[in-house]
């Protein structure tokens, strides 16, 4: 993984992956309640890349239009979070969440709404989990759905923070035996990454301190 940025060590990446896993699991619980169906979410791996690296990554792996739910967050660490689906997967996602019986037209009609809600749950859970561990408040903007190819998705919140990094995670949605692939991305500037590292260090310390 040569393209990764060495801002996080292996262990820190593992720990962060687990934190996000805890987060998406909480989101899955919420989704289960919401849709009354069997929902499992998991993030198998995480990559830390530059903004341009993230664009390359998504362009190589997904050909064509992407649909993303985007939310900005502020608090102990700030940045911009995205839940991204290939356009073809997003409709399947909507149907899985909103019900198998929907026609394609019906699904299209509520697509943005359903995506925004799903994204909100997933992203909120992830970030909240992290913030809770830090015992720090975190505010989040309203979710917005954007369609774009890679470059537009990863535009930074503020022009001056163009040099930030992107935490890039795969996310697998298992909803009613449908497997839907997607990505979670978090754009953060360096101070936020530093704050995040403190959180991670805490988590590791906690794990190590446990006498099991």
């Amino acid at each position, binding site marked *: 993984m040569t393209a990764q940025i060495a801002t996080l060590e292996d262990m820190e990446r593992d720990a962060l992956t687990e934190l996000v896993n*805890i987060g998406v699991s909480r989101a899955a619980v919420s989704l289960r309640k919401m849709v009354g169906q069997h929902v499992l979410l998991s993030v198998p791996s995480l990559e830390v890349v530059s903004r341009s690296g993230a664009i390359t990554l998504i362009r190589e792996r997904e050909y064509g239009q992407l649909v993303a739910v985007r939310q900005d967050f502020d608090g102990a660490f700030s940045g911009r979070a995205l839940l991204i689906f290939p356009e073809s997967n997003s409709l399947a996602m909507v149907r899985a969440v909103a019900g198998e019986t929907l026609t394609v037209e019906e699904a299209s009609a509520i697509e943005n709404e359903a995506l925004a809600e799903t994204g909100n749950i997933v992203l909120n859970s992830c970030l909240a989990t992290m913030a809770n561990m830090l015992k720090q408040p975190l505010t989040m903007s309203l979710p917005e759905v954007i369609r774009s190819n890679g470059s537009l998705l990863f535009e930074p919140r503020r022009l001056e923070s163009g040099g930030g990094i992107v935490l890039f995670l795969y996310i697998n949605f298992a909803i009613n035996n449908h497997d839907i692939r997607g990505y979670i991305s978090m754009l953060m500037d360096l101070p936020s990454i530093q704050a995040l590292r403190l959180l991670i260090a805490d988590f590791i310390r906690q794990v190590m301190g446990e006498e*099991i």
Partner: protein
Amino acid sequence: MAITVTEAGSATGTIIYANAAFEALTGFPAAEVMGRSDRLLHAEETDRAVLDQLHAAVAQTGAGTAEVLNRRKDGTRFWNRISVTTIRDAEGSPAFSLATLAEVTGGPPPANGHAGQQHSRPKLDEARARLRQVQVSAAAAGAWEWDIATNRLVVDARFASIYGLEPATAELPASAFFKPIHDDDRMRMRIAVAGALQGAEVFARDFRVVVGGEVRWVAARGRTYLDDEEKPLRFAGVLTDISEQRKVEERLYIAQTAGGVGSFEYLSGYGTAEVSEEFCRLLGLRPALTLPVRTINAVVHPDDEAIIQNRDGQIREGAAFHECRITRADTGEERWLASRGEYRRAVGGGVIFAGVIYDVTTIKRSEAQLRLLTESLEERVELRTQERDRVWNLSRDLLNVIGPDGLQRSVNPAWTTLLGFEASELLGSSMDALVHPDDLAIFAVHLTALRRGELTADFDIRLRSKDGTYRWVSWTAMVQDETIYGIGRDVTQRKLLEEQLRQSQKMEAVGQLTGGLAHDFNNMLTGILGGIDMARRRIQQGRLQDVDRYLDAAVTSGQRAAALTHRLLAFSRRQTLDSRPLDVSTLVRSVEDLLRRSLGERIELTIDADPDLWPALADESQLESAILNLAINARDAMPEGGQLTIRLQNAHFPPETLEAKKAIAGDFVQIRVADTGCGMPPEVLARVFDPFYTTKPVGQGTGLGLSMIYGFVQQSRGHIQIASDEGKGTAIHLLLPRYDGDLPLTREVESEPPLSGTGETVLVVEDDPAVRLIVLQSLKELGYHSIETQNGKEAVPILQSNRKIDLLVTDVGLPGLNGRQIADIGRESRPHLPVLFMTGYAMEAADQSRFLTAGMTILKKPFSVDEFGRLIAVILQRSPGESGKPGH
């Protein structure tokens, strides 16, 4: 892991599939259970409530897990963890249930509260032991369940086996989960498990465990179950030994990484292909397990074939290979890749294209460089050829190439410049046509030597130019592959100068000779003329007593003059040699006294003769003179005295040793005259045979000595060799041809007084009036009758007439017919006519044995009346009677 598939729709479905692990676990063969209800595993003590719960969960959520006590075919019981998943059809209705079955050690976890252990412990242990055997061989998965509240771990037999735990360990502290984990993986696993314990629902990690010193790779797949308050309740999952799989994967990974080979697999109709990490690396893409086909093909050069082709599955089967250029996605660098793959039908329809790619840029670049090199090589060769052509065309030397057939293959323009021939006139013809007839032999010798394998040759020959004149050309030639390459330099000018130099040297020598001779002759003539003049005066004065003294003086001077001319002739190799068989040893002994006297007391003379010495064929007096001459030279070289050795021995020169020395092979009598004198420096040695070359002060030598000996030996068909070491002495070898036969016993005695004639008729042919006068007068005084003629014109009619002629006395050199021709004409009618040739100098008569036939004798001028008379008497005695009569 034991798996069954049952028809959905009923709580107790019909089994439509069971795998081998199922048989291993339950003892029921798959064939036996097909079509039967899955209830066949249930025993009377199986907890129905748990089963109901399971069925309810499956009906509601499509999945469920329960642990129940089941029975095997042989009746033994085991705790079975059943996990059921519903498989739905296209409409979303449940179609099948997929169940996994695994034996759980120590009964249901306490959290579940379904203890219900009602069977005897020993029986269970026995079952477990048996099961373990089966599971080890079946590579079944081991299961664990981690109760988060109590932090206790429950594992089944297989898990225990993988973890190296006692099978009986029913309940463990949770920390046991980490105990055997490899140090390098422990940290990562603690973090991962921490995530699971804190609510991360999906758990999937591969890690190493070390059991009994052996490292095994295991895959852990688990779930975290939450309680009603969404709090993590338990963390359960299965553990599989994937060491073998991992080993294969690692080998494959190493093979791909080390070999730079990336693999891919594509099923027709899909938008993505499965790829390996190395595949991504080769294209400059970020590592991924699947990539869109468009991403893969986008890096390929637009003019080249794509990596993933045949997306519609048109090609059903067969191998595929192609090369293409790519632009690496990361660096933009252009590389060459080769793709080798295979199309095969997929089981579920469609076509699978699986294959590998690898980088061939280096090879391609080498090829390109090689091509470039080849092209530039051609250019360079062309350039070289031009350069060579320029040399060929501009050279003033003759350049040519002669093929193995001896014909000229190519000639350069210098041939036209020098000889005037156009190249077309020379090509395809032999050089022989141009070579001077006298040089053909030399040319042939060198050509043969070249063909025989001598690599180079240097020789000078004359070549005819178109206008008929000859040019001297000095050739350097070499041979390669039977082809001769020649370079000829025009040395005509040099040859001309050399010839001029030789001529001037000759003229100089002749001048020297003439001057010396004139001086000597003037002295002798003074003696002769003065003597005669004084005699005449004394006769006029009547003082006859003094006449003899003056005439003797005149005769002595005349004899000296005769000796000088003789030596001159010897030097010019035109003397008349009287080569006869002779015993050299006797000859040397006969002059020994004379030699000792000449050498003086300070020089010790040794004569060493081979007792079996062969007779030699040579002129006795010349040989005598030569030996004396050499002895005198040796004496002069030893003014302080020394040793002179004359050694006589037989010598044989085989032909091969003599070729280079230009000598004739055969048997020789060798006369070695060696002194211990001052020797000669090389520059003197090189000139010793040159005429008039002398190291002696003026007046002490004529410089003719050695050159005369050289002439004599050469003319006798012998050899002369000289070796000299400055300060040590000189050795001269005279080699005279062996006479193959016996020596004549005695020689004719020449001291008898002249016999008077008895009126025999002698025909005299002599053009010199003075000689003719003396001859006629002598004959008259000797009592012969003579007929006087001046030449052949006068003599021939007389010879052809009937006149009585007893002897023909003729000069050899005559105007018109020479003496020998006259003799031949005379012999036509008078076959036994004796002939006496008189000669002062005659090339034809230089070798008597060749010149004369029977009844012919030669008399060297000058001669005395006595000598003349004795000879005539001898001739006429030899052929008494019929001598003078004509034959017809």
